[in-house]
């Protein structure tokens, strides 16, 4: 099996306060905010502006995410 080249790429994590501060300091169009939970969970509550892409659909829908912008995933 071939391992994707960015398989071992480090992904940084942010605390809740860091995310809140980031969202205060940036406009929604300047970053991607992706909710990878299930639709039922999203429906109950989600961070305003979050785009729902359930984790099982990421491969098929990765083209919906702008690679030029920072991406926050939860």
């Amino acid at each position, binding site marked *: 099996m071939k391992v994707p080249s960015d398989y071992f790429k480090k992904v940084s994590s942010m605390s*809740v306060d860091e995310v*809140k501060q980031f969202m205060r300091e940036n*406009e*929604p*169009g300047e970053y991607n905010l992706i*909710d990878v*939970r299930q*639709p039922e*969970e*999203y*429906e*109950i*509550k*989600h*961070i*305003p*502006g*979050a*785009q*729902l892409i359930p984790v099982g659909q990421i491969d098929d829908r990765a083209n919906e995410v702008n690679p030029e912008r920072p991406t926050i995933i*939860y």
Partner: protein
Amino acid sequence: MNAWEGLVAEGPPESGMAYFEGTEKPEELIALAWILEDGSRKFYSSLLYLFDERAAKELFLNLADAEEHHKKSLVDLYRKVSGKKPGDAFPQDFISTEHSGDVMEGGMSVSEGIDWVKRNGLNAALELSVSLEANSYDLYIKMSRSMQDEHAQNVFKTLVTEEKQHLEKLAELLEKNL
């Protein structure tokens, strides 16, 4: 998400757009936004007469004025996107009569919202307003994403920014009142 403890929106990804039974033409989204803004304006205008606190009255008046301003921005946008002048049937042509005239940001009925506030007081009114504005902020980000036209995207981005400012003002007053 459990650790978030911040503003949240509710509803499925298509929330607020459900009145159009799956159609998402720009003109229809603009009409929906206009209807929700008009409902919120009615809601905030009614709150003006329910409370005596000066700061709350001023904020609800400002919010009602802001919703009126948003309606005008949306009419201008409709004219540009559709190439037509909004007629007497705007925006009712785009929405089912069941919801027309009594729905506000967040999808709640205006009359239900006012009744709920009458029973629960000022802090509840502020909390409900925060919830409405958070859902509106969420909806406009989605609408901005769905628009192909750059001018339309910018109009919705402006609405997003203003809803964010409303949220900050509401949160500030809520904090003082608690």
